[in-house]
């Protein structure tokens, strides 16, 4: 059994105390919380700078310069120029390095986003109806509801959402013919797909017609979106958005609670190996800290601390 140093024991108690200092904000904004918060700010910046030094300045700049790599002088110069930002008079000097880094970001993000967030997402929203009909049919519980239904919902849903985020004014001429065009497109695509499927022999006659209809629906949707029926399409899009946001709502709640659980595990000494727990006694530490903080809050309140008017709730 490894003997913990006094250093660590004190640390473990302090960390539990600080945890509760932050939690005291739930009661109300108070000096202990402020203290803990500012302590946090100071330490975190200190750590960042330390890690930055060992992470970048040392290996990527200093060591290279020490190694006599002349090219590394340029970033050094840029860096020095960047520091002019702090002076009121010469802050313009810093524009060059800032321009450099902003431009680099812009260029890098531009292609990356366009590729991964646009091209790939579009390319991956082209479901093979015939195959998924063959594999999953209309709706397959065992595969989390995969199947042609989901495929069509995906395509139509994405189209609808994109239309919801379409801000230009649609010329009335288009709006007028939208519905008719939708019907034409739908029926046309339906026959085309059905026929095509039969020709390439990817589906039987019944399935071909059925899949044709689905494809027709997908094809009709965009035109419908720019017709007088636009509100309906966008409403569907909004529905999709809301389901999605609902999902992230649930996930976020889960995430936040998980963090709280993590702290609780820490305070109950569930995160450490037993041999350490018996030396630290985290639960006693928690109780002691709670008592201390409550005592402080009471005193502070009695000496007229706290919000000027009671916080209405």
């Amino acid at each position, binding site marked *: 059994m490894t003997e913990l140093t006094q250093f660590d024991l004190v640390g473990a108690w302090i960390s539990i105390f600080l945890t509760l200092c932050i939690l005291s904000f739930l009661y109300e904004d108070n000096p202990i919380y402020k203290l803990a918060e500012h302590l946090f700010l100071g330490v975190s910046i200190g750590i960042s700078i330390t890690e930055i030094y060992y992470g970048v300045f040392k290996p990527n700049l200093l060591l290279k310069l020490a190694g006599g790599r002349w090219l590394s002088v340029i970033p050094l110069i840029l860096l020095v120029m960047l520091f002019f930002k702090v002076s009121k008079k010469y802050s313009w000097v810093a524009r060059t390095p800032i321009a450099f880094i902003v431009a680099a970001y812009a260029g890098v993000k531009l292609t990356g986003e366009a590729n991964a967030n646009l091209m790939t997402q579009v*390319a991956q929203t082209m479901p*093979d109806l015939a195959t998924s009909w063959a594999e999953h049919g209309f709706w397959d519980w065992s595969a989390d509801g995969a199947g042609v239904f989901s495929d069509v919902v995906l395509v139509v849903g994405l189209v609808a959402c*994109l239309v919801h985020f379409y801000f230009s*004014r649609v010329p009335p001429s288009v709006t007028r013919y939208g519905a008719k065009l939708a019907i034409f497109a739908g029926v046309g695509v339906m026959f085309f797909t059905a026929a095509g499927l039969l020709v*390439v022999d*990817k589906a039987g006659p019944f399935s071909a017609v059925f899949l044709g209809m689905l494809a027709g629906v*997908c094809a009709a949707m*965009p035109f419908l979106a720019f017709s007088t029926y636009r509100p309906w399409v966008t409403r569907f899009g909004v529905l999709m958005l809301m389901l999605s*946001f609902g999902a992230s709502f649930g996930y976020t709640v889960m995430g936040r609670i998980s963090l709280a659980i993590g702290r609780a595990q820490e305070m109950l000494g569930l995160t450490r190996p037993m041999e350490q727990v018996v030396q630290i006694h985290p639960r006693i530490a928690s109780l002691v800290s709670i008592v201390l903080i409550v005592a402080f809050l009471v005193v502070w309140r009695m000496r007229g601390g706290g919000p000027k008017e009671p916080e209405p709730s």
Partner: protein
Amino acid sequence: MRHLLILMLLVAVPALARGDAWTPEQMKAATTMLQVSEEGGKALRLDGDAVYFGDDALPPGLADAARELIRKRDAGVPVELPRRLNPHPGATPKVVVAAPVSSDFGLTVTAPPENDGLNLKLAWTAPTPEPLAWAVLRGPSADGPWTVVTADLPGPTLDFSDKVTTDVEDERPRDSYWYRVVALRALPPEQVEGEDWAATLLAMGAANPAVEGRPIAVWFKTSPGSLMLLALILGVGAMMLLFTRQARQGKEMSIRRIPGIDAIEEGIGRATEMGKPVLYVPGIDELQDIQTIASMLILGQVSKTVAEYQTDIIVSCCIPIVREVADEVVKAGFYQAGHPDAYRPHNTRFISSEQFAFCAGTNGIIHREKPATNLYLGRFFAESLILAETGFVNKSIQIAGTAEATQLPFFIAACDYTLIGEELFAVSAYLSGDPRLVSSLKASDYVKVFCIAAIVVGTVTVTLGSSFVQTLFTIAGG
């Protein structure tokens, strides 16, 4: 060494016999022990389902290991000892080379497509029995000098992508390289300690045919995907420039009026009726953030309307700079509305640059000054739901807008109207009429229509079994 292992085994058998569940590590250890100890004289034999080691039957788990071992032995496959092969200079390897299985593996060396000119693809055919590992040798010419590229490719491997130089700064790629592959087999460790394995490797390789490969450095990707991507980017750029010019020439940019705008105006109207102020929170991010910029543009219009309605507006900021700019913006709004006198600087406040302190401060404002309408427009993080909650409890009309997907759900659930993602930028473009924003808005609208078309056409073609459209939107990995 060997006897030690036998001893271990005999100790291990009863110990292992107890636990039926075997971890891969135990399995491996058992196999090793068996193999080495078998070389020590005691035979492994199958008797029906049972496996005997000498005279004692083996427990289930160990028996499995033994069967595997016997199978390999009969197939002539060398048994894998726990080993680490490490071609790195200085480290002594745990495995050395025996006679190669065969000398010619039909090695081919080709340059990958659209490559940076630093990679070559090696491919070869499988010999029988499968070797334990593969080594790859490289040289500048057919007759060396040869160096070991790698020596721990697992037996089943039949191809390898070699990087001819890892740092072009001190080693430029040559225009041709020569390769050899060597098949490796294991010998028990104690026989190989201290041998110069690299030399042995090179010696073994000498017999094998050397194959030449020429890396090709491509100057421009021409796959349909990357061309499409370039076209898209250039297209957006061209449209933006065009529309900006049109807008500058005063051509009216046709953007539809977004319901959010009406919501904002209604909110301000309500505040006026109730004779209470409007609270405006421009998010908590820096000024240069695109959402904050959008928020400032909207604030300009909002403060103008507020001034016209003769109402008060409180702006609560988390960043000092943002506060300064907001101050200017509001002042300008009041001037434009023709009520410069009604402008109150102290209503544009810097609360605190600490997230939660800012949150507490803003909550305080909501409690004390009871704004009738709260506008949260900009980049929000965790504080979003705390503000929205306080506002709701305070029965204010709340209109939010942000592009932070993780915060949107809370705003939607707690506010009366929420601008979702791009709508925030659209509103700012509409209200400010800034040609740069409007033009990018329209440009992206056109691209969206293009995407929609692509998706529909793609779905149909893919369903019909042609992935042509799909490849147009797919970038082949470089």
